[in-house]
């Protein structure tokens, strides 16, 4: 296990515990492949540190990442800047009141969220 993941095991901080999950590309493959999100407007609801949102950004048209944890969203924005991904936006928000108009998205991903 990598040093980062090991040092954060069991802390229950979403942004960090996501490192113990399957890689986004692996999870996407299990669900049916990149075709599910290719060219689509995607929302990663409960995105945490943005790991999954950034992982599918290469396939999607746009990716929105939403999470109630401001700290996690700050980490996600930082990761997006670092990776140079331009079609991903992150915001703090709650699932009960999504800040998007009706019919604005094609795919909503609840990866370890519900």
């Amino acid at each position, binding site marked *: 296990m990598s040093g980062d993941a090991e040092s954060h095991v*069991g802390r*229950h901080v979403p942004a960090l515990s996501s490192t113990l999950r399957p890689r986004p590309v692996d999870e996407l493959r299990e669900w049916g492949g990149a075709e599910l999100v290719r060219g689509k407007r995607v929302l990663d609801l409960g995105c945490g540190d943005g790991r999954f949102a950034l992982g599918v950004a290469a396939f999607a048209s746009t990716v929105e990442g939403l999470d109630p944890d401001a700290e996690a969203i700050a980490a996600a924005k930082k990761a997006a800047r670092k990776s140079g991904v331009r079609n991903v936006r992150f915001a703090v928000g709650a699932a009960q009141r*999504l800040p*998007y108009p009706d019919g604005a998205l094609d795919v909503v991903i609840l990866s370890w969220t*519900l």
Partner: protein
Amino acid sequence: MVDALREVHRVLAPRGIVIDARPDSRVLAYAERRKVRGFQRFGEVKTSSVELASDRASDRAIARVVRERLFRRRRHGRFWHRVPFESLADLRHYLWEHLRFVHRASWVVDVAMRKRYANEEFVIRRAVRYEILETKRR
């Protein structure tokens, strides 16, 4: 959760999809020793009662929005995922602090065996389930 799923339905375009993926608490997780080829089962790990209740609540929420005809079930499945640890002590530490699982594994090998391989690499192998839902016409 039902409120959130109704919101998801609102923001989705016609025939949009929801992918719900989470650990599958309906099956056990396993503590395994990594061998040169393959893995050796050392123990079984149950999901904590709190998380079991939470998973059931999520299942009920999904069932409800399907009953409300907001979504239809398109496909579902399960795959296995391994969380690696450098030693048995690391695995135990993870279980002790992690909320999802019970804090102790039920070992299927004896103490001598656990001591013998304590410093080798271990994994927790757990199931992840997913379900793909499609929005129905408004």
